[in-house]
């Protein structure tokens, strides 16, 4: 089973600052880590490899230092790391990112499965995984909490819903996004760390990928961030006290005020 895992480098702290001019995250001085949700994707891929064999390629789009995240994934049991890195990709929104990643995945050869975390902890959009599957024209199953069964050419999965879960059977190749309930990511082994240190990381720039220049980077991104702000906290409700009749009167007055 050949598996591709897509990961993203994110700032470690949740208290990141926003650049007031560009309305984008200020990443300077903040420690970068693998998006926590992607750790579950890596772990699930390693577990599937341990059961069914095959190889795991980890792909990320990001700056050169994202290479360290690919090595971390290799230390956990992935085989290969692919860094999609080019100035031309800067400023990509979820559309351009998923388009670019899909372009890179096409270069990696045949695969059975793509696994992504359900969303990134910085952007929280949960759009890149589904976007990749759309660009590649393969089925997607989001919010997977359990791989129930793997048979030749298909998988049975439990997909988390707000109340309960549904069981979905998907033909392969397919793309899954996984939730944290699916597993507990492992601590790497010393051997894994040694292997990761010397593992070869392949870099893909715009040149190596067959991409439409109009669909990449900032100019290929339909999303425009107009403003980022913290919503004003909700003020507490008002409790009316007294006799029922009196309360009813007060309530009517308050509603009237509100309407006016």
């Amino acid at each position, binding site marked *: 089973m050949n598996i591709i895992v897509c990961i993203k480098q994110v700032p470690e702290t949740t208290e990141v600052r926003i650049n007031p001019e560009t309305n984008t995250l200020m990443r300077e001085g903040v420690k970068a880590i693998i998006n926590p949700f992607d750790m579950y994707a890596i772990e699930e891929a390693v577990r599937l490899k341990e059961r069914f064999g095959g190889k795991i390629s980890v792909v990320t789009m990001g700056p050169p230092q994202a290479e360290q995240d690919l090595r971390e994934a290799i230390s956990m049991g992935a085989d290969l790391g692919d860094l999609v890195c080019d100035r031309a990709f800067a400023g990509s929104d979820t559309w351009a990112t998923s388009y670019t990643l899909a372009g890179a995945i096409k270069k990696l050869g045949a695969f059975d499965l793509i696994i992504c975390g359900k969303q990134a902890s910085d952007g929280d959009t949960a759009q890149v995984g589904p976007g990749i599957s759309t660009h590649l024209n393969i089925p997607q199953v989001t919010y997977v909490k359990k791989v129930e069964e793997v048979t030749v050419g298909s998988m049975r999965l439990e997909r988390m819903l707000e109340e309960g879960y549904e069981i979905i059977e998907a033909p392969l190749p397919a793309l899954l996004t996984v939730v944290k309930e699916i597993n507990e990511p492992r*601590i790497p082994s*010393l051997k894994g760390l040694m292997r990761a*240190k010397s593992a070869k990381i392949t870099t893909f720039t715009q040149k190596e990928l067959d991409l439409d220049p109009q669909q990449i980077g900032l100019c290929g991104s339909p999303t425009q961030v107009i403003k980022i702000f913290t919503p004003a906290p909700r003020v507490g409700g008002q409790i009316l006290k007294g006799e029922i009749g009196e309360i009813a009167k007060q309530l009517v007055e308050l509603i009237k005020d509100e309407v006016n």
Partner: protein
Amino acid sequence: MDYLLTEEQKMVKDLAHKIAEEKIRPAAAKYDISEEYPWDVLKVMAESDMFGLFIPEEYGGFANSVMNLCLATEEFSRACGGIAVCYAASALGTFPIVLFGTDEQKKKYLPDLAKGKKVAAFAITEPEAGSDASGIKTVAKKEGDYYILNGLKHFITNGGDAETYVVIAMTDKTKGARGASAFIVEKGAPGFGFGKKEDKFGIRASSTRELIFTDCKIPAANLLAKEGLGFIVTMRTFDMSRPGVAAQALGIAQGALELAVKYVRERVQFGKPISSFQGIQWMLADMATEIEAARGLVYSTARMVDAGVKDVAKESAMAKMYASDVAMKVTIDALQLFGGYGYMKDYPIEKYVRDAKITQIYEGTNQVQRSIIALKLIKEMAK
């Protein structure tokens, strides 16, 4: 301070740190109370290749060195001295096989120990043979292709939970110290049973039990080295393992210091954090300096062992004695800095005091260490 660690040593230290923070620290209080053996944590250590650090690569080990073992033990002990000793005691039980085992014995026992599938234990102490090991009463009598063991060992760390034991027994009582021999005994050997599990002051995550041998029959091939070399095996084993106990003490001290520094920065009295008071600052400065001095001694000794220096008995004894005395002093002072809260079990610091105490006692009391150091010193000067 820069300890001039190699890339490999940094990797071991960082990985052990990760295991300590993510798996050991959150479990420390639970196992301290329940006294259950922390198998789940040991499994994580095993999967991360930590049990390979004290076993040569040709027998399944990985990154084998006493320095790496010390770095791992120190990091584990920062989070919990009890869980750390389960790990370190397996190294202690494994060293005799690494040092004296035949190729056949090594092939049979070391790969499983390296993978952490099994843990090991070392058994010399008896009710009447503590510091005076010549008081050993357990006997091993050869009968054909077997040895028959009879006697009782007590205070055995990992006792009952370990699968592989190295046991010191008398093969010739008339020869005194030269009549002792070392044997590999597997859990499940006929006539090999366990007595009571001790209820301990500290390191409560680790198990300490009696081993009971009643006509225990083991193959003659399980003799380590030769008959009569039991004490040589023991001394050489302790030379290797004492830096590990020192590292355990060092880790406990470091862990306590870190908690204390964090606490005094948060604790406000007289309108400011107590870290702003000179009396507190001077205590912290002394604690930190003594820890660094101990660390220097421990790392130097470990590096000597790895470099193949033959006689490290004096340095090993110094490292163990000094680091454990520092651990006791630092943990007591750390508790003092926590004030009344430190005396309560709701806070983690009192456990560090309890865990530190044993490091002054086991693998040779610090009084015995001082005797070793002094005798070596006098002998060296007499040359």
